[in-house]
């Protein structure tokens, strides 16, 4: 094929590493090998860089550096936030989350219900993936210790009103954690303004290599350490610092801060171009998620009468990477829990494809996707017993 391309539209799964991030990390794989805790110059020089990285992460969130704890990934941050909060507040036994959380939250809650005797409320969503805040408010009881609601959904891109949710939690005296892995860097997150107690973020969604995350812990929040050992991270997360990756995360947060305007505008325009282009060329297609209140980089489209895995494999053969909420792609037999919670009909739940862009996505790539995707959908529809071209 003469116009063969590689077009990566699966950035909510993981992103291309930023060349600036890799460059910032490299010295710490070599000469700058000191342990930041050591009382000599080898360590001291490295410690200065770790301090600076922590400040950059804090700056992106408008938080204080001492409120940032480095972790190994978003999942660790979520586990730390949830299990650490419960351990430090053992007197209450009710916890609340939503049905559309990432497994890093949802499966922790289900484990706590099954094995630790916690009463769990999982809040549902409407067809656009929005929560009912009245229902949320009513779910918080005097026995409720923790509310965990994601900032942005990884599959549909739907944003939750973290400001309003946090205000309700505060009014009810409930600790509020938000999994902001998909939101940080894509939309502004200002923790001086947002009533959030705990916030998880992940490096590889911000263009670092995989293996680094952070947990924001608002000053004064009662939480127990998750990994116990040395005094690193003020005793909140023991273990010798993963220095190169911490430096990488600092650099990535600095870049995100510079790029967030572009992310909000150029990427949104490209996403809209892709989405309106596909919707106008392809009949019987539906946007999953709240079309207005949504991450600027995400488009989840359900194509009726065809199945997601078949779409992805044809797209992959044409060089385009995307993902699907279809049952077959996950190895389970039911479509994604997010689409099911949104009551997406079976007619297009199985044929739902998520396209997620990043700052590295170009207009050229979107043009190629717009040219490539409609024939793939048509090819599969032509062999589907449910598709009637006359309708």
């Amino acid at each position: 094929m003469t116009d063969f391309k590689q077009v990566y539209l699966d950035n909510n799964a993981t992103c291309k590493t930023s060349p600036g991030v890799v460059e910032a990390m490299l010295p710490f794989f070599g000469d700058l090998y000191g342990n930041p805790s050591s009382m000599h110059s080898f360590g001291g020089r490295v410690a200065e860089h770790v301090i600076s990285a922590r400040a950059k992460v804090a700056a992106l969130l408008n938080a204080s550096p001492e409120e940032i704890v480095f972790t190994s990934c978003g999942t660790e941050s979520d586990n730390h936030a949830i299990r650490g909060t419960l351990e430090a507040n053992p007197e209450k036994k009710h916890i609340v989350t939503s049905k559309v959380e990432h497994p890093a939250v949802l499966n922790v809650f289900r484990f706590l219900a099954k094995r630790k005797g916690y009463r769990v409320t999982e809040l549902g969503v409407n067809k656009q993936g929005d929560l009912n805040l009245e229902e949320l408010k009513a779910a918080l009881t005097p026995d409720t210790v923790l509310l965990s609601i994601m900032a942005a959904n990884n599959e549909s891109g739907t944003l939750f009103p973290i400001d309003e949710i946090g205000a309700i939690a505060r009014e009810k005296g409930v600790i509020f954690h938000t999994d902001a892995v998909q939101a940080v860097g894509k939309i502004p997150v200002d923790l001086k303004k947002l009533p959030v107690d705990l916030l998880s973020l992940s490096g590889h969604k911000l263009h670092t290599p995989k293996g680094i995350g952070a947990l924001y812990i608002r000053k004064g929040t009662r939480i127990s350490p998750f990994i116990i050992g040395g005094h690193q991270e003020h005793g909140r997360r023991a273990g010798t610092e993963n220095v190169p990756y911490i430096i990488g995360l600092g650099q990535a947060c600095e870049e995100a801060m510079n790029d967030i305007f572009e992310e909000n505008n150029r990427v949104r325009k490209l996403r809209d171009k892709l989405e309106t282009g596909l919707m106008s060329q392809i009949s019987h297609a539906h946007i999953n998620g709240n079309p207005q209140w949504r991450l600027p980089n995400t488009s989840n489209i359900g194509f009726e009468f065809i199945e997601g895995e078949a779409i992805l494999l044809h797209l992959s053969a044409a060089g385009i990477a995307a993902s699907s909420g279809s049952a077959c792609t996950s190895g389970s037999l039911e479509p994604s829990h997010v689409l099911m919670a949104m009551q997406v009909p079976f007619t297009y739940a199985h044929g739902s494809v998520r396209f997620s862009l990043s700052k590295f996505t170009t207009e050229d790539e979107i043009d190629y996707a717009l040219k490539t995707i409609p024939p793939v959908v048509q090819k599969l529809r032509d062999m589907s017993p449910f598709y009637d071209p006359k309708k």
Partner: protein
Amino acid sequence: MWDYTKSVMDHFSNPRNVGKIENANGVGEVGSLACGDALKLYLKIDPETGKIEEARFQTFGCASAIASASALTEMVKGMSIEEASKVTNDDIARFLGGLPEQKMHCSVMGREALEAAIANFKGEEIAEHEDATVICKCFWVDEQKLREVVIENKLKTVEEVTHYTKAGGGCGGCVPDIKRILNDINGTKADEPVEKPRMTNLQRIKLITETIETKIAPILRADGGDIELVDIDGYDVYVKLHGACAGCSGAKATLQKIVQETLRKEVDPDISIIEASK
């Protein structure tokens, strides 16, 4: 990504015999949009010789569903209906150089469509099974089909049954029924212990208390000791030892061995015994 064979990828990328046959005299349709895959098979059979002259298909499904349907049509073209009726799901999978275990249900769907198309040609009504015999209500799999697939593919575990038929892959409510059918076919020797139904917290607390009182305390008391139940938190049971047992170097071993093993056996294998401080 799934580990598909070259042949699966070939039949997926370039499926053979796609489409309808307008004057087909044997049509079989299985699956639905809700199930996540469906197959409609069209056969043109010579009424004199019973030979399948043409086979085409339409399918809604993943790569292995498309490949299985394509393979099926290639296999049965030119066969007599007697020969075709002997084609098994395993034959379809083997034609493709194998399918991932979790995708075997795609080959089963191919065989079912073939069966339905042949029955349609012969003018037989495939009896709609009564609701009462439907075992898996998520994917609408009835007992007869389950039994056929279990016997034909020598299935031993619930997981295998799910891979081949999807039954049990939704809400999981029919898993006990699948176990019953497996035990029935493979003899009474259960391949997996039949799970006791999960107790409520209240039932578990009651049973733990009873077990300690009637089965554990008497053994300790016989040695001049005693056991006090302090608290139960989920599956964590906090106890204190008194009398001869307390402070005895063997106390920990006693706790671990007698108390935990007894409670795990009588109540739940996930129980942990923790010595209450203070």
